[in-house]
């Protein structure tokens, strides 16, 4: 048993590090996602990675992957997090991409994969519906065959960044008589199709990231169906498995801890830094220890996966990873005391007063705390993840 990196891995790490240092997109340096001005900001880092051929490390080499080992992928993810690079949006690269190269026709692969890699086609995810959240298989959006088309009707919700999306991948019901899971199909829909409309949902932090997507008699060519009709649930489960990989966010949280320590060193309490307060440092230490355990749990999962194992243990990564992310935002809010009060406006607020007082690191910190509550809800809530472990691991 050892967790040392080989000399080759260490050389690779150096290469990644210097690449990031030289190519970090200046247009978004220091900006949080809240402050992005639009599509270009979201895609700035994506385009840099695409040019380098590093946009999709998890894809097979033949479709545009890097051919890296599991360790190299891990190193790459870690270096990106340490350098605080912008996140690559998951909807194309991590979600629909793998479904397409695994289950789609050659024609579909040719049509979609290059544009996912380049970032020129922006994807969003049409899974949840108002009545179908945790119980996703109960979804009602219908697709009825009409010659070479499906006529799609229904409503999707919590659709992240749909306001920018060119295409949406949807779970739709194609058989209403079959058992729930057996009547679902996986359909790709052009957002420009007549009958598609998007309505913003503002979250409690004031941000506009999620949306409702309405599908009203949308005509979708049958050639946009992925795999077989009524087998969409299999592809959806495959995708959810992908969504969980990397969700632990260990490296990003490590970086978050460093940032927290820095600001706790800057915050004064009775003439001493807050970082000298045993009560506060105890909280940080507990968080770090949880994170360290999670890091090794992730490494064990990784080692297991590289041997071909793939298990519901991934749910541990989601549960603990999101818990740590939430506690990080909570401690940050605690650290900044009264400067947690001011509201940092978003572009869509159209407020005349854009003044935000307090140190830079306090700006938007409480909004970040509020928004991060969603991490234990989306992608399978912590309750659902526990159900998975209970059933699949413990056999209860």
């Amino acid at each position, binding site marked *: 048993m050892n967790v040392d990196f080989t000399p080759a891995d260490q050389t690779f790490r150096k290469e990644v590090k210097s690449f990031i240092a030289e190519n970090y997109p200046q247009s978004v340096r220091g900006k949080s996602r809240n402050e992005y001005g639009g599509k270009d900001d979201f895609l700035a880092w994506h385009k840099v990675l695409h040019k380098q051929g590093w946009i999709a490390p998890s894809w097979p080499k033949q479709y545009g992957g890097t051919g890296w080992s599991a360790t190299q992928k891990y190193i790459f993810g870690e270096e990106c997090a340490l350098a605080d690079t912008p996140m690559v949006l998951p909807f194309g690269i991590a979600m629909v991409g793998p479904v397409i190269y695994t289950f789609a026709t050659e024609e579909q692969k040719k049509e979609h994969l290059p544009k996912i890699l380049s970032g020129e086609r922006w994807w969003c995810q049409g899974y949840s519906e108002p009545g179908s959240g945790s*119980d996703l298989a*109960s979804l009602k959006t219908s697709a009825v065959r009409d010659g070479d088309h499906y006529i799609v009707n229904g409503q999707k919700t919590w659709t992240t960044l749909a306001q920018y999306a060119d295409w949406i991948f949807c779970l739709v019901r194609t058989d209403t008589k079959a058992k729930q899971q057996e009547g679902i199909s996986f359909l790709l829909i052009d957002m420009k199709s007549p009958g598609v409309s998007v309505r913003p949902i503002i979250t409690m932090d004031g941000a506009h990231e999620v949306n409702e997507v309405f599908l009203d008699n949308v005509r979708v060519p049958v050639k946009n169906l992925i795999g077989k009709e009524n087998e969409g649930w299999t592809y959806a489960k495959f995708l959810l498995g992908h969504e969980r990989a990397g969700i632990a966010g260990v490296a990003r949280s490590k970086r978050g801890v460093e940032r927290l320590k820095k600001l706790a060193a800057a915050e004064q309490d009775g003439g001493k830094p807050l970082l000298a307060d045993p009560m506060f440092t105890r909280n940080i230490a507990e968080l770090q220890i949880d994170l360290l355990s999670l890091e090794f749990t992730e490494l064990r999962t990784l080692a297991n996966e590289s041997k071909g194992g793939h298990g519901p243990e991934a749910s541990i990564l989601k549960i603990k990873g999101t818990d740590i992310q939430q506690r990080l935002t909570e401690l940050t809010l605690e650290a900044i*005391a009264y400067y947690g009060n001011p509201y940092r406006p978003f572009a869509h607020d159209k407020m005349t*007063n854009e003044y935000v007082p*307090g140190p830079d690191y306090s700006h938007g910190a409480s909004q970040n705390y*509020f928004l991060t509550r969603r991490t234990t809800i*989306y992608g399978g809530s912590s*309750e659902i993840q526990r159900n998975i472990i209970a059933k699949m691991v413990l056999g209860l």
Partner: protein
Amino acid sequence: MDFSFTEEQTLLRNSVQKFVQNDYTFDNRRSIVKSDTGWSHKDWMKFAELGLLGAPFSEDQGGLGGGPIETMIIMEEFGRGIVIEPYLGTVVLAGGFLRHAGSKAQQEKFIPEIVEGKRVFAFAFAEPQGRYNLADLNVTAKKSGAGYTLNGHKAVVIGAPWADSLIVTARTAGGQRDEKGISVFVVDKKAKGVSCRDYPTVDGLRASEVTFENVSLGTDALVGQADNGLPLIERVVDEGIAALSAEAIGGMKVLNDATVEYCKTRKQFGVPIGKFQVLQHRMVDMFMNYEQSVSITYMVTLKLNESETERKKAASAAKVQIGKAGRFIGQNAVQLHGGMGMTDELNVGHYFKRLTMIDTMFGNVDHHLKRYASLD
């Protein structure tokens, strides 16, 4: 032993409850928060009409002659509606300073104005470097001639954009963190040298960064004893903590009721999600957190006029319980509402945000754990 309310107290509760239910609906609150001024002067005058602005003042002063219990009742009902108007800053805090330590002239001038809704106050005590330490003051009031000259920066002064006057804590002697040498002043916001930069807060209120540049104050601006203001400040802040605790339990109750109702109606996997035992137990924990918070709110309310040490311990104990329970209930109300709990549209997030900010106000859980331990 008796935890029942008098007939007058029940009538008071009913009248505030009726106002919140009929006039201060969630939609009305939303439009008030989004309005240019961010508060409703009309509702403020309604408070005056209902006698709420005079609740803690004696009948001689035009008030209702109420005490801590009346304040608790009003704040709890306001908490149910997450009322944003500056009752805490004006009636509880400024009112407290004036009642406990105001000169006859100050009381005669300001109390009737408060009672009639003609003067709004904000309490300027926090400073950028001071965290929750009420004695960590860089704002100075230097003796000059017959009065004082005020200089410095007060941070996150809640309600200052709406205020006519500020209650300001300032250092009149000693070093930055000395407990002695602190004084309290009442300052007209329009006075020369006072400037405010206003902004909205995450819980729908408005606040200001207030700077004082050579503001001239007469001796009549001093509230209470010169150089010995800290005991007074601590007393009023402890009363503010009791009021905030009452506001918090009002909000917690709304969140718990909404969550139980939602879990009874939201169906997944063919059954209401409230049928799942893991969620039932969570809601039981939320309920217990609420009940414990109600208890400690009664406790602190009844101990506000006991010895200084008893009062301080009670206030810190309440602030710890309220902070922890507010966090647990707020976070789980959001979690159990799922995506809907995250939205701006539903009221749940707004109560969660207010409870979060109540934890910060006058010191968070960690701060009051330490204060309690140091007094015990």
